[in-house]
């Protein structure tokens, strides 16, 4: 087999098998998450080195699990692990690859529920799951939470410490304990979706996978309107995917998107799911965000959008899930509903609070409003600041183009 196809096979197994191998190794090592991740990584590295020449083994997942197990025993030996623990591990053959063992009808979903233990803070549950099971980098997770990589690294480290010290077991929760873990699992899915949504192409298929898992979740927990809310939100956003980037892969803002290319079928499906959820009269953050997305999707243009309704929905969102990003989005909607002055006052207050320091979209939104109230010099300065802060080259180019157009 040539090298290229072997590494393609490995990439395919990685997408599906990473979390299963990590889960197997967490159990094998008696709950050592760091060791489990390192061994899984080692196993894939070894596969990349040997498979192109030796060929892909007949049972790749079993091969990788065995390789990870052997690395674990090696590493435990070198770290002079407690004798009894090492003897036990060295005697134990490689465990079979992880298979699900509960009524949760999907392996990955089952692992997410297992990972999200309520003895950890919600954000720690989400970060740990994204890092250990979904294999996102600490930097990617930090960006999603709007914190520095260092802060996120410490947060994940502390979570793993508590798992080890308090002996938090890696055990699939029984059905009656799923609801208390649901908020964390929903967040994990949404952040995975967003990770895939931020790129012109989503090579790993994170968006599709998050939607697939949300569908499984909705049928598993039909009485949870927030699960439906999340699915609706993702479907309506997915519907806009084709219009979010131009041919060169540059991001296109909502106002300039070609609405004829929005997928009406997905929008319709999302809207119907949202309606069913809202009938339960337990509106939560995902249902409200889905309602906002549906409001945009229903409008023929930016000018004809029901902005007062959107401002009202952001007010609701602030009540159930306050966050500076929600305040920012509300201010942008307020500018459309009531004009730039009111919105600028809201943004200035937000900037003064320091809660979104370093966030490029705050600077970009302020620049836009300053320009609309005729404060051109300040607007330009603010937009340059946004360009400086933007996290990707694509976003920097978008903002530079805007600066050139002014």
């Amino acid at each position, binding site marked *: 087999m040539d090298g290229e196809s072997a590494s393609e096979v490995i990439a395919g197994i990685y997408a599906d098998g990473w979390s299963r191998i990590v889960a197997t190794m967490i159990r094998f090592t008696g709950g050592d998450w760091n060791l489990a991740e390192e061994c899984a990584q080692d196993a894939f590295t070894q596969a990349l080195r040997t498979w192109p020449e030796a060929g892909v083994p007949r049972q790749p997942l079993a091969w990788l699990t065995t390789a990870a197990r052997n690395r674990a025993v090696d590493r435990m030996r070198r770290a002079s692990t*407690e004798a009894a623990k090492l003897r036990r591990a060295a005697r134990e053959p490689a465990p079979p690859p992880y298979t699900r063992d509960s009524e949760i009808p999907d392996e990955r979903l089952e692992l997410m529920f297992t990972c999200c233990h309520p003895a950890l803070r919600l954000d720690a549950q989400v970060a740990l799951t994204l890092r250990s099971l979904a294999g996102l980098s600490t930097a990617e997770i930090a960006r999603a939470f709007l914190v520095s990589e260092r802060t996120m690294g410490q947060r994940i480290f502390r979570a793993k410490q508590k798992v080890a010290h*308090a*002996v*938090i*077991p890696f*055990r699939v929760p029984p059905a009656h304990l799923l609801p208390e873990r649901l908020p964390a699992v929903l967040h994990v899915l949404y952040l995975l979706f967003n990770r895939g949504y931020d790129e012109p192409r989503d090579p790993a298929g994170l968006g599709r996978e998050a939607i697939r898992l949300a569908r499984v979740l909705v049928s598993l927990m039909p009485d949870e309107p927030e699960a439906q809310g999340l699915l609706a939100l993702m479907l309506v956003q997915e519907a806009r995917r084709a219009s979010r980037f131009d041919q060169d892969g540059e991001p296109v803002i909502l106002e300039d998107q070609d609405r004829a290319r929005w997928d009406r079928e997905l929008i319709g499906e999302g809207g119907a799911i949202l309606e069913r959820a809202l009938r339960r009269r337990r509106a939560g953050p995902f249902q409200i965000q889905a309602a906002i997305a549906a409001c945009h999707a229903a409008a023929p243009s930016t000018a004809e959008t029901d902005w007062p309704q959107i401002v009202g929905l952001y007010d609701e969102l602030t009540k159930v899930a306050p966050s500076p990003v929600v305040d920012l989005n509300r201010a942008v909607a307020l500018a459309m509903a009531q004009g730039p002055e009111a919105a600028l006052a809201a943004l200035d207050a937000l900037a003064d609070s320091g809660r979104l320091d370093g966030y490029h979209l705050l600077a970009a939104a302020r620049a836009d409003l300053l320009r609309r109230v005729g404060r051109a010099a300040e607007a330009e300065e603010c937009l340059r600041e946004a360009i400086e802060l933007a996290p990707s080259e694509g976003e920097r180019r978008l903002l530079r183009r805007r600066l050139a157009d002014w």
Partner: protein
Amino acid sequence: MKYLMLVCLDPDLDKSKVGDAPDVEEWVAENDGKGVRLLGDRVRPESDATTVRVRDGEVLLTDGPYVETKDLIAGFDVLECTDLDHAVEVASRHPMAWGGVIELRPFWGEDD
């Protein structure tokens, strides 16, 4: 795995919502029997507490608690459990989980 179970009062608790809490004698008997509860007791209130410090080689005593906790700590138990889920299950069947608050602290142990 050993856990210290701190049994605490909750001054903000609405007594009408406590419900049908389990019996503490039964809890003690059951968990002693299983070897889960290694020891434990109620402790006397803050007015009976003494704080000890050694400074410059001299033993200094203070009448009263170290931190003004308003008599939050009512007692303690030492549990031997397989993992945190097990300890949570045991703690949740103690009457003070219903009529107060229980904090679980893992023992430091031999590692690191």
